[in-house]
């Protein structure tokens, strides 16, 4: 009595095994070309073919190749279209590919240094003249000239087109004096011009006039690295052989988005990555205790606040006593010490600690339930007022959800009626900035390069967090246009004091910025300014 044919039973697992192995063998390899330029054929995921480099080489760089792999915590939201995004991940990445007119290698914004510009002079209150290097070429081989600076600065500043950088720039017209000299003019004096130029990549004018799809997919800079392969989550770069300074010391630089912090940690500990981004507080001790890896941290120029959306929560917009009650309802110190595990410092101003002209405000907002209840009484809301939503995103800012829940719990103790809504970053951003959003407060951060103009811009009338406070908007504008350093310091002192008094938003803390790196990786430049992370002088010495 035969029920089944035995050949079938033996065959199917074998077929599956063969199929699996064939698929495994046919899967895309991890090799990249290092010989051709970035404008190779695009198969949709990568570019170029030719001589190969094993991008999965162990971190000690077996053989002569030095392949450095950096795992990012933030998604690559944007494409390569110049000045189209303020996404921090994109700005940090672009610093490997592009150059800037000036440099602040120490992060101190009072110490500008030459970069693409060899020298500069302030001609008058609204005009600056820059002399350019004459030995710089773009990755496509075209020489850098004044025309490129004109096209770049005019577009970035919003003078000649739409730019996401216009939020912190002033529209700037650029006059070409000769092939290597430009004059940048603004309608009004523009104090942070050097700080802005430090974050404005210089792009080829010819490239800017090209096809939009090419602009979005292929960067053409003068920086130390050029883009070799570009996939959704992995950006592979190789040295720019024609760089005007010493070439980079490493052979391949890989920036890769890896969402899960535990996976990033595993990769570092196992030696499959040389540097990992935004180490969460709970991983600090592990890295400290482990041999062969270390922490590289700075106090970030990033404010983490509960940002309040104007118009969503009328009592907030109208009643200063209610805002004061909220600000006095919870204790920031324990949040920082226990939940964020010391990887931050309590906000002492609406400008982050390392911002130029930072001034700690007094008195600090500390938990004072009695004072908070009194403020609620004064606001005419002894019952705590209306219900409101605090939105918080999982998976980006460290320990965000426990922080929001702890704040809400303390708020409830004095009678306030918050509800914590947990989302991902995308959902939070959408709710915060769309007309149909329901949230009142959003646990978010804002980072800058260290100039107070950038740090304060988010509170200006050009941004969604603006409550119609004309005094504040006027001070922000005044800070931009005041050239004298002492006078500018006075403006920002007044601005910070005014913001603290009005408390349009709920200040929380300033995040630390901590990388985990392999001990044999040297020369990585990490600065709090915009979370700068440069691998130009990095090398592996294992």
């Amino acid at each position: 009595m035969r029920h089944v044919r035995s050949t079938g039973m033996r065959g199917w697992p074998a077929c599956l095994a063969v199929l699996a192995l064939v698929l495994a063998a046919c899967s895309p390899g991890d090799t990249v070309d290092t010989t051709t330029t970035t404008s190779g054929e695009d198969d949709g995921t990568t570019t170029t073919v030719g001589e190969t480099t094993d991008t999965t080489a162990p971190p000690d760089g077996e053989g002569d190749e030095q392949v450095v792999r950096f795992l990012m915590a933030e998604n690559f939201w944007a494409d390569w279209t110049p000045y189209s995004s303020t996404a921090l991940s994109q700005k940090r990445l672009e610093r490997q590919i592009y150059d800037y007119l000036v440099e602040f290698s120490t992060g101190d914004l009072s110490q500008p240094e030459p970069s693409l510009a060899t020298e500069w002079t302030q001609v008058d209150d609204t005009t600056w003249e820059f002399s350019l290097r004459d030995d710089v070429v773009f990755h496509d081989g075209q020489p850098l000239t004044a025309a490129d600076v004109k096209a770049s600065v005019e577009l970035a500043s919003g003078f000649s087109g739409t730019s996401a950088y216009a939020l912190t720039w002033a529209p700037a017209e650029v006059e070409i004096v000769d092939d290597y000299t430009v004059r940048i003019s603004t309608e009004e004096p523009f104090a942070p011009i050097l700080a802005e130029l430090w974050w404005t990549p210089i792009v080829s004018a010819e490239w800017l006039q090209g096809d939009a799809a090419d602009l979005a997919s292929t960067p053409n800079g003068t920086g130390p690295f050029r883009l070799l392969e570009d996939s959704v989550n992995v950006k592979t770069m190789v040295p720019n052989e024609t760089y005007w300074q010493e070439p980079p010391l490493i052979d391949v630089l890989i920036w890769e988005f890896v969402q899960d912090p535990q996976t990033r940690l595993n990769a570092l500990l196992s030696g499959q990555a040389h540097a990992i981004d935004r180490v969460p507080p709970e991983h600090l001790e592990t890295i400290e205790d482990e041999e062969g890896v270390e922490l590289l941290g700075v106090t970030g120029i990033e404010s983490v606040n509960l940002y309040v959306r104007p118009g969503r929560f009328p009592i907030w917009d109208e009643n200063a006593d209610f805002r004061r009650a909220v600000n006095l309802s919870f204790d920031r110190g324990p949040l920082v010490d226990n939940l964020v595990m010391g990887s931050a410092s309590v906000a002492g101003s609406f400008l982050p600690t390392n911002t130029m002209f930072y001034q700690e405000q007094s008195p600090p907002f500390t938990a004072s339930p009695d004072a908070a209840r009194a403020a609620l009484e004064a606001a005419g809301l002894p019952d705590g007022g209306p219900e409101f939503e605090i939105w918080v995103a999982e998976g980006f800012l460290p320990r965000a959800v426990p922080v929001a829940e702890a704040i809400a719990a303390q708020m409830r103790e004095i009678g306030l009626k918050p509800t914590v809504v947990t989302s991902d970053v995308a959902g939070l951003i959408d709710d915060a900035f769309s007309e149909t959003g329901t949230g009142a407060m959003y646990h978010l951060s804002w980072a800058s390069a260290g100039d107070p103009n950038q740090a304060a811009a988010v509170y200006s009338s050009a941004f969604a967090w603006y409550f119609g406070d004309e005094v504040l908007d006027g001070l922000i504008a005044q800070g931009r246009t005041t050239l004298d350093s002492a006078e500018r310091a006075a403006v920002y002192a007044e601005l910070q004091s005014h913001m603290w008094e009005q408390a349009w938003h709920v200040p929380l803390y300033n995040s630390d910025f901590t990388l985990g790196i392999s001990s044999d990786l040297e020369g990585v430049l990490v600065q709090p300014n915009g979370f700068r992370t440069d691998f130009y002088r990095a090398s592996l010495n294992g």
Partner: protein
Amino acid sequence: MRGKYLLIRLTQMVLVVLAVMTIVFVVLRVATGDPARLANPPGTPEDIIAQTRERIGTDVSLGMQYVNYVWDAVRGNLGTSFRGSQSVSSAVFSALPNTLSLAGITIVISATIAVVFGALAARRPGRLLDRAVLVYAAIAQATPAFWLAVVLVLVFSVRLRWFPAIDMTGWRSFVLPVTTLVLSLSPILVRTSRQSFIETLSEDYIKAARSRGLPSWRVFAVHGVKAASLPLITIIGLQLGYLLAGAVVVEAIFNWPGIGKLILDSLASRDFPMIQGGVLVAAVVFVVINFFVDMLYAVLDPRVRVARA
């Protein structure tokens, strides 16, 4: 009759895929997170957001977006990623073999374990070996895959440095993710296999074979394995969906360049075309493999063909 059955099955497959496409399309649009807003800096004026919507095609009505999506998919065009200008087809079909190889090896190893463990347990039900197999199944089933994956990495990658912690870089990189998936998949297969063997071995024809003097191993290997494997095939077919879904977690932890990780990463930026393309291809793979499992089942068990006829 066979032609009619095939036609019905094919129609069912198309309907399942269409349902998956529709559900994913609707859920993505219902969930918060406007991709146009995410592509621009926070606070960007609404007219710029509107321009972005126009560029990526989310400015038209939902109905029109749906029709465009289905029509493009029918023509084999899965669109372009919202992030950059990358082709969804290229990204998905680059990732697909990586997921399938992971799933395929997992199935082969899990099925082998199931047959061996099930057979060993069924030979003496209730005895020590049987109990050991049941304990294995219980422990493996109760172990969360994400926890197991992290523990395996910490022990075998970080401490011992035997296997890579992340990436797909060669045969050694399969060991930990496959182990994680095998320990998740094998318990149900082991239980099924054990039960089938126990039932099969108590059948009259098995007793008759034994009474005719056939060696015990031959009765077991030829008659027992054949019959007991039929339910296993069904379960494997059904569990394929679990494997593809479970691979999302495993792929994220091991940074495995498969469809699961592609979808998960795309979700963060609401990259609708990439998510839809990834889910669509995974759904097609699932229904096609299940179709072949059904066909295989009919080939292996004539009673199925008779019943369908």
